[in-house]
């Protein structure tokens, strides 16, 4: 097993990765902006509170005092239930409030609020501090007013925002991932279409691919088309060569055989006639061998890329029987057919199945005695069975499994012309179609029964 690299998967993962990155960025930005806004709200209230306190500072006879305004602290309860601390420092001394509340450093003296997040009594607090200059006892003294608040409401807001941001981020990611899936799918759809277009073709269809091709695939398609045209040329040459070879070999053989027949008729002495018959037999044998070898090569070639045409096996067997009926008649053999009265559909290569059936039937007729019947049946069970039964000599008890091997013949057929390839061809055709060839003695007496089983 080699791990195949899938463009679709890579494209999908890359897009999903980008989506994840964007989702994360989106999440972080959303959270940061929202938290900043929430923090800003708290800062605003803190600074308002500190300013309100600072504005209430007043100078009295013995220094500076403060009438803490009710709203200065109550406004801090408007957002949540956070703990509140404050401290007023006048001239370096704590006037009122929590004297251990730390103050931010570098407080601007112009009255602008300064914010900081500090630790106080085991909690993080947000501190706002404003500074005022107050005239007291004839001199100017400085007052710092700090208001602090814990950040629980902020944390709750932050949790809520994080939850929303997470939801939005995850939702965005899921949506983007689905879109990535769709994008990867649709981007590769032309490839699928092309694959389908090429796969749909029969084994002999080597026309150029003309499917609507995206620009990126044009070089590939061009290369494929060029390859196919070369292949087509090569195949045509091969076919022509085979045809030419057959013609070259068979035509002289035909001439010789015909001349031999003529000679046979003219001769009168039985021994001369017998010699001629031997010669004709030899010619037939070589011609048949050559023919079946070519057939076998063709079967192997076609089985590699099997056609899947819809065939009617009833019609197919009928044609095969008709084809061989004249040959059978010569010996007063009758081909009896037993077929369903409806078409039996099978998807396969008609030429190969015809060849297999003709080989089986030809064998049956060859080995049948004169005046006997050959039964051809088509039955539908778990499998489709094309069966040919003859009343010939059978297989003489030999191991029938060997008969489908190349050039293996029965032990009792020496007097009959044959190459031993007939059943091999039938067997290979059956296998190519996912079926099998069964060879058995005729169950109803003398003879052989050869069956081609095909899956339904």
């Amino acid at each position, binding site marked *: 097993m080699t791990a195949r690299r899938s463009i679709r998967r890579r494209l999908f993962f890359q897009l999903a990765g980008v989506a994840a990155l964007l989702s994360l960025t989106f999440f972080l930005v959303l959270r940061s902006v929202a938290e900043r806004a929430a923090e800003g709200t708290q800062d605003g209230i803190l600074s308002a509170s500190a300013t309100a306190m600072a504005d209430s500072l007043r100078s009295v006879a013995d220094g500076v005092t403060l009438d803490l305004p009710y709203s200065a602290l109550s406004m801090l309860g408007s957002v949540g*239930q956070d703990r509140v601390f404050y401290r007023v420092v006048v001239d370096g*001394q704590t006037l009122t409030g929590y004297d251990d509340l730390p103050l931010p450093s570098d407080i601007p003296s112009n009255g602008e609020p300064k914010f900081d997040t500090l630790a106080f009594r085991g909690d993080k607090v947000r501190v706002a501090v404003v500074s005022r200059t107050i005239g007291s006892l004839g001199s100017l003294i400085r007052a710092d007013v700090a208001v602090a608040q814990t950040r629980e409401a902020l944390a709750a807001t932050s949790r809520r925002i994080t939850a929303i941001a997470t939801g939005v981020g995850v939702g965005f990611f899921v949506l983007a991932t689905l879109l990535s899936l769709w994008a990867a799918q649709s981007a590769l759809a032309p490839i699928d279409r092309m694959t389908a277009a090429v796969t749909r073709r029969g084994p002999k269809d080597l026309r150029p691919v003309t499917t609507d091709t995206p620009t990126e695939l044009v070089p590939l398609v061009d290369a494929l088309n060029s390859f196919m045209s070369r292949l087509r040329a090569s195949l045509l040459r091969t076919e022509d060569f085979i045809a030419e070879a057959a013609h070259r070999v068979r035509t002289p053989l035909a001439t010789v055989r015909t001349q031999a027949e003529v000679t046979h008729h003219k001769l009168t002495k039985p021994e001369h006639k017998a010699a001629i018959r031997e010669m004709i037999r030899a010619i037939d044998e070589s011609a048949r061998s050559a023919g079946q070898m070519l057939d076998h090569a063709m079967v192997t070639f076609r089985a590699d890329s099997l056609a899947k045409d819809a065939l009617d096996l009833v019609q197919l067997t009928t044609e095969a029987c008709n084809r061989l009926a004249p040959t059978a008649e010569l010996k007063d053999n009758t081909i009896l057919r037993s077929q369903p009265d409806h078409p039996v559909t099978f998807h396969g290569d008609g030429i190969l199945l015809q060849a297999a059936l003709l080989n089986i039937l030809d064998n049956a007729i060859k080995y049948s005695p004169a005046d006997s019947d050959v039964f051809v049946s088509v039955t539908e069970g778990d499998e489709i069975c094309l069966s040919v039964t003859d009343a010939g000599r059978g297989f003489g008890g030999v191991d029938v499994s060997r008969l489908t091997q190349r050039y293996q013949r029965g032990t009792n057929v020496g007097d009959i012309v044959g190459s031993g390839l007939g059943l091999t061809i039938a067997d290979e055709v059956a296998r190519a179609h996912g079926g099998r060839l069964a060879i058995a003695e005729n169950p109803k007496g003398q003879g052989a029964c050869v069956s081609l089983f095909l899956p339904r």
Partner: protein
Amino acid sequence: MRLAFLAALIWSCLSLPIRAFEVEDRVLYPASPAISELRILSTTDRAAFEPIILAFQAAHPGIAVDYTIASTTELMTALHDEGAVFDLAISSAMDLQTKLANDGFALTYSAANTGALPDWANWRKQVFAFTQEPAVLVVSDRFFASGTAPRTRDDLIDLLRADPDRFQGRVGTYDIRNSGFGYLMATQDSRNSQAFWRLMEVMGRLEAKLYCCSGDMIRDVSSGELALAYNVLGTYAAAQQALGVGIQIVVLEDYANVMMRTALIPVTARNVPDAQKMIDFLNALGTRPDLVAASGLAAIDQTALRENTALRPIRFGPGLLVFLDQLRRKNFLRNWQNSLFQE
């Protein structure tokens, strides 16, 4: 330097860390067998709270209760300054309880079963309110025939001004310097109405008597020593009125501050689970009319608040801390004294 000295002086006067806090009473409610002990520091009178403790023990057998009673300020001193060890603190001073929580002296009980109580009935899941008690005007039957009692503060001021001889030395209110509850009510009054300062001036001219506790005021009104007492805890008054002591209770119609009795678990608590059980028990007070009747403590009742809009529940929040500010408190007390003690 002078300012700092002043501030330090005020702080030390307020918190008094030198001496231990003052206990008014201490009652033990044993359990047999006692598996654990719940130590409660409370400002609520024994008579009011005992039925609740007994009912609690019935619901949770095996918990012995050590019930210590102190004033609101003493309670604050004990927990805020002295680190006294108690499992539960129950106080009628919402502001002090709020300050305890704000300053980090309370434990959070986030799983508290608040039942049907409104959200405003607790603060930070640390301070849990379980009663609503209005501050009322209590008048004596000897001075006021039925239906003649004043109904608003302005009525009251007019009445007192109109007949100073009749009321001279016969009016009473809290000495807010010593009573946390009195201080809370006074500060809330000062926020709600300018009539409060006028009332204080009038009462000052009439040489009002100052009290530490509602119980004493009710006692003096019922005995005819006082014609009326202002800002009395309504629940106590109702309990006394039920005994037929010759007093009338007036919930003033311009407004009436409603205090909520609250419980919190101090950080010093050693028996937190039982304290939490007690808080859940108190939160469910509204479902026990028998206890409400027995204790005289009114459970939180939103319907009543909706029906009488003059009732103004004091809200939790940092605002309650304002009048606890040292300077603010000092200024407020000075104003109050200036109103009451006119030289």
